[in-house]
């Protein structure tokens, strides 16, 4: 029942939030709901068996057994970190809401609905159930973009809707085909059964391609990313944090969960090209980011490159790279949420996010020293500087992929260098430099800094001790990782004295 609670609690909370008489009460309800979700996730992680690679806490209810569509849930090392990420980011987003602002109640309701839907997608072990949740969260999300965005919000929201709808249709088609063409009397959508069946190679190729394009739009992967810059930039920073921090993970999760393991032969055949695609995507995202003049757009482009690391890891499919890929999803979520939060804060206070306008925000008296310091931290975490969570994830991906695909891995490493280039451009222009003597920006209160501080603490703590993040997914990754990464035996050292 606990997994169902993770899905339905936020949805119930959304209803309660909508019904609360006062604005403050609505926010308190939303926070209480999400605190319960986070607490539940913590409890689940306490009970979670680290040595077990398969699904745990399984729940099964017959729904439409004739169609093979059943309400079956399960949690494994791939979904647990993402459920935790979802809960944390949603909690911070609601915490940061100003309860008295107009329509903030609607925002929180929609956030809670999406939170539940996303958890459903992460926890579903029935492919059709996954598709249903995957499609359902689209509706509140469309509203989130269309209502709270900036000038071109309708354009952005519609573009997002069309792209995501195409993604949804492709995935739906692929999943339907997967279920119906399994050869049995009844369609099969149960994930565990799907993994055991063997499809003919030509069929695998077609379905894999459909899934890759479908999830590739969501993640997004180059060249299916064109909805991303517009959507991220035009939506409010709250929505951008949610989109980039959590929603994009549905795409990469789909690739790791469905595209990679369900079509092993076609995947093996295609993976050299996928690795190359990932390498190109990483460099493409980085180069495109360097040319941006708008800091929010720059951060948005940074996301494109970083999602491609996950494709690289999936293409090489070693246990090591898959642990890295799961960690990369969490790390990217934390870092991107932090960056979008800070950029949003800066835009809100200074009224600009142009590189040519902002300057000298590190100024201790009239600038934003804490915010700037956190921006430096976020940028450097994104560039993969050790000591922060991004490095641990990326390094595992590099090490896990190098033996299989050396060239794309080297491209990816070069990509982290280019990431450093555009973040240095961003930091040099916004944080460094001289703040104009006549400029007096409004202060950022301590309360407003809390969400960014919390994210920063996660980024640093998980960077200093990556085992806290990696241990959840190790067994699962090993059960997925086709080719185990085994370095040759270490040459015997001279005796070591242990004290």
């Amino acid at each position, binding site marked *: 029942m606990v997994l169902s609670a993770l899905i339905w609690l936020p949805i119930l909370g959304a209803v309660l939030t909508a019904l609360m008489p006062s604005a403050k009460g609505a926010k308190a309800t939303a926070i209480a709901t999400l605190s319960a979700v986070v607490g539940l996730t913590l409890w689940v992680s306490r009970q979670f068996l680290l040595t077990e690679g398969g699904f745990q806490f399984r729940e099964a209810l017959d729904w439409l057994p004739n169609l093979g569509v059943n309400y079956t849930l399960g949690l494994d090392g791939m979904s647990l970190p993402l459920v935790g990420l979802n809960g944390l980011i949603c909690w911070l987003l609601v915490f940061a809401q100003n309860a008295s602002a107009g329509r903030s109640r609607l925002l929180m309701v929609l956030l809670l609905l999406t939170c539940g839907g996303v958890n459903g997608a992460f926890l579903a072990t029935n492919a059709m159930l996954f598709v249903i949740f995957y499609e359902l969260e689209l509706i509140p999300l469309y509203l989130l973009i269309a209502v709270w965005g900036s000038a071109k919000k309708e354009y952005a929201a519609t573009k997002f809707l069309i792209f995501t709808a195409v993604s949804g249709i492709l995935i739906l088609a692929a999943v339907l085909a997967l279920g119906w063409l399994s050869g049995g009397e009844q369609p099969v959508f149960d994930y565990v059964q799907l993994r055991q069946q063997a499809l003919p190679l030509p069929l695998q190729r077609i379905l894999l391609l459909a899934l890759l394009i479908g999830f590739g739009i969501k993640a997004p992967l180059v060249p299916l990313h064109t909805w991303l810059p517009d959507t991220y930039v035009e939506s409010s920073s709250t929505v951008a944090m949610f989109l980039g921090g959590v929603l994009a993970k549905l795409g990469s999760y789909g690739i790791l969960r469905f595209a990679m393991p369900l079509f092993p032969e076609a995947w093996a055949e295609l993976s050299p090209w996928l690795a190359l695609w990932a390498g190109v995507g990483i460099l493409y995202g980085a180069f495109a980011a*360097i040319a941006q003049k708008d800091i929010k757009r720059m951060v948005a482009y940074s996301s494109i490159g970083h999602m491609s690391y996950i494709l690289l890891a999936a293409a090489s499919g070693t246990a090591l790279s898959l*642990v890295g890929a799961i960690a990369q999803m969490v790390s990217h979520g934390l870092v991107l949420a932090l960056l979008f939060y800070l950029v949003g804060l800066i835009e809100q206070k200074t009224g600009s996010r142009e590189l040519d306008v902002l300057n000298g925000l590190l100024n201790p008296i009239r600038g934003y020293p804490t915010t700037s310091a956190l921006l430096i931290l976020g940028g450097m975490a994104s560039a993969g500087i*050790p000591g922060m969570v991004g490095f641990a994830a990326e390094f595992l991906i590099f090490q896990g992929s190098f033996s299989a695909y050396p060239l794309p891995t080297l491209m990816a490493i070069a990509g982290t260098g280019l990431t450093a280039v555009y973040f*240095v451009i961003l930091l040099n222009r916004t944080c*460094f430099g001289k703040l104009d003597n006549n400029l007096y920006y409004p202060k950022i209160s301590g309360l407003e800094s809390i969400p960014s501080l919390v994210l920063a603490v996660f980024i640093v703590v998980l960077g200093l001790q990556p085992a806290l993040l990696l*241990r959840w997914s190790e067994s699962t990754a090993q059960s997925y990782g086709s080719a185990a990464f085994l370095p040759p035996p270490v*040459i015997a050292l001279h005796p070591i004295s242990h004290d």
Partner: protein
Amino acid sequence: MLHALLDTLWLVPIYSLVGAALSLVWVPSITRRTGPRPAGYVNILMTLVSFLHGLGALGVVWGRSPVLWEVEWFRVADLAFTIPVEISTLTVGAIVLITGLNLLAQVYAVGYMEMDWGWARFYALLSFFESGMCALVLCGSLFFSYVILEVLTLGTYLLVGVWYNQALVVTGARDAFLTKRAGDLILLMGVVALLPLAGTWDFNALSLWASSGTADPTALAWVGLALLAGPVGKCAQFPLHLWLDEAMESPLPSSVLRLSVVVATGAWVLIRLLPLLDASPVVQSVAIAIGAATALGASLIAIAQIDVKRILSYTVSAYMGLVFVAVATRNQEAALLLVLTHALAIALVVMAAGSIISNCITQDITQLGGLLLRRPITAFTMAVGIAGLVGVPPLGTAWVFQELVSQLWYGQRGLAILVLVVNALTAWSMARLFWLVFGGAPKQMTLRSPEPIWLMVVPMMVLAGVVLHVPHLLWQWQLVQDWAVLGQHSGIAVMVSSFLGLGLGTLWFRRSRTGEPFVPWLLPLQNFFAYDFYTVKLYRYSIVWIVDRFSRLVDWGDRFVIDGIGNFFGVATLFSGESIKYTTFGQLQFYVLTIIGGILLLFLLVAS
């Protein structure tokens, strides 16, 4: 159980890290109440603790065989990230050097940065560097060495950027970060590529692996070249040398640390990697070529500079080039010794230069002069530093150069001559520096120039004492056993090269009071050196241009081509819908005709 001081040696990097963390308390609102100074005092105290701990441990570890520990960081999917800790006379000695120099630099900074507001950031970063370097010398793993070097690259960005509201500082910080990061990332490629080959990152195991001969020579060469890039970036060697010069925009006390020990982190890693480089002749020759080119080129560039800090930064590049040569020719003892003597001497020269800059305002040596009698202490300390830096017997570097020359003379005579030439050029350059600052008549900037506050003078004097005692230490440590070697040909050659450089420089610059070239037609050549071989322009018109143009091209393609395709479909849909809506005539026959046509088309498609 060894000894309490050794068992707890891992605390040494932690002390300064705690100091750095405590500085975070001094946010602007608290600084307004207490002033910025307490943050500095906290860090000085922590560094003092580190230094005393290191000094005590050095006494204990002396003469013992190295102790190895292993600490597991984490283990994932059959890959263990284990930190091998190595405690030996060498590593503890390095810790004493690092913490000692940082202690002096921090005390010096109390005087130098008297009026500054950003103490908390500055001292925190100095401590951060100290901590990183102490961790680097203790850890015996290539992976963790990479991690530390990379983190220190971030530290360099922040430390150079301490005075972030000046334009040159901002570009300097950027270039330092990106140049070092380029080197680091190539090093990372090597680190990643090495594991599947060797199965380990432990330096000791790597040396066994490299010498076992099981490695594929081509792979080894590629990996070796990649690994070389890290030290090349850190030690400011060609072609990644530009950053050190620009990093001189940071506050001077941080330059004391950077020029003496931070650049040497690259040399340290290079020395640890020696067995690996040794196994590949290609890598070895590349290392020698880079080192030799930098040593010669940078010492020539140094002579053409008029900025004190630039003169010193290029001199450091040149000396690190000599360290590269020494390592690549398997003279690692000489290399380590050169790192030591160079660190002490250059730190002293930088401090003396800072003592001039702090109250003469300018660091342009053509505007200085006539300070010999006004600033006797500074003049004395700088003279001692210079003597320690170039091979003036009996001070430290003379022994190192003697050793190097005698080792290289039979076999690689060209390199032996290179060492002598670089020494002579540096001696000339240092004589030029000394006499342009202290000789001649006072100029406008030097008319009123007292010795600085005791907080700066005392560290200088202490360090001068240390530099003067280096020969004694070498004797004590039995690194030098026979005074007579200075009388050998190699010793005499070093002595001659030093005194030739110093003497000619003195003769020339005591008279010539300007920065003009010797003869007018040499001006282009002088400019060639003064502008650092036009490396800045070279970069601007090559790599920077390419990245800039390419990124704009990608951005253009992204906006108009890739996004354009999506928008085209949108527009096409709208347009076709708009045009088709005019076909609704209400004539049933026409609709039936359309349907039949469609069915026929489908039928044809299926049939084919």
